[in-house]
């Protein structure tokens, strides 16, 4: 194959991938990237609870440790399998803006955060991974204040492997 031929091929290839990208963008498949922009990378990659909270809600001082609760038995005090531990959060607070679940000793403490609207209310239930015996923390931000509760969970088999 001559050199010009190879160049032609390279150009053709480039043109094809460029047009594919344009098609993808036009068909709306590029949408995930736009949604991803809202994902708080700093908060989820923080390695301590304080850093995660600062990145997520902009403050780490907790106003009160009352006013919200884990449901009894969820998370349990002892979990055999750390890969799937149920948690349930209840609260009587009003105007809740954001709720976060953290596990103190996980490589990245922040597990999930969710934003409530006036149409959605607690209790909220989910399942999380816990690497080793650790405190599970729930944080609620309501009217600019943080509320916190925690529960110590022992795990048999770590769930972040």
């Amino acid at each position, binding site marked *: 194959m001559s050199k010009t031929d190879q160049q032609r091929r390279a150009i053709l290839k480039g043109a094809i991938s460029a047009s594919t990208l344009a098609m993808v963008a036009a068909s709306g498949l590029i*949408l*995930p*990237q736009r*949604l*991803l922009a*809202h*994902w*708080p990378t700093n908060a*989820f990659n923080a390695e301590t609870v304080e850093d995660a909270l600062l990145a997520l809600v902009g403050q780490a001082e907790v106003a009160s440790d009352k006013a919200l609760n884990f449901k009894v038995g969820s998370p349990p005090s002892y979990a055999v399998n750390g*890969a*799937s*531990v149920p948690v349930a959060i209840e609260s009587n607070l009003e105007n809740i803006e954001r709720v976060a679940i953290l*596990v103190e000793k*996980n*490589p*990245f403490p*922040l*597990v*999930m*955060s*969710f*934003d*409530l*609207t*006036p*149409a*959605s*209310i*607690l*209790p*909220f*239930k*989910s*399942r*999380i*991974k*816990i690497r080793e015996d650790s405190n599970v923390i729930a944080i609620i931000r309501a009217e600019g204040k943080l509320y916190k509760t925690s529960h110590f969970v022992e795990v048999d088999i770590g*769930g*972040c*492997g």
Partner: protein
Amino acid sequence: MGLVAKDRIRAKLKKGNTSVRLLLAHPMHTGRAKNKADELIPAEFIQDIRCWRNEEEVLTIKCGTATARNPYFSFQLVGGKADDLIEFRWVDNVGAKGLAETRVK
């Protein structure tokens, strides 16, 4: 884990409120685990889940890697009536996305 790989979603009226339960089929790889050949499994986890009720956005969930495999969520919506449309859309870190919807019973 004994679960059929299929999204499951239920929405039911309970004492005037709507109770919504969602189970997504997703491996939720953290990027830290190794496969049998001792290679790291690349991270693949859901990052963003949004819920709509009749076109109105009612809940946004952001997930990190520590959300359990086949993520499960349960929460309540104020009020609601039978036949309301509950719709979820999710996106993961590699750009895959999904949709789950149901009608309130």
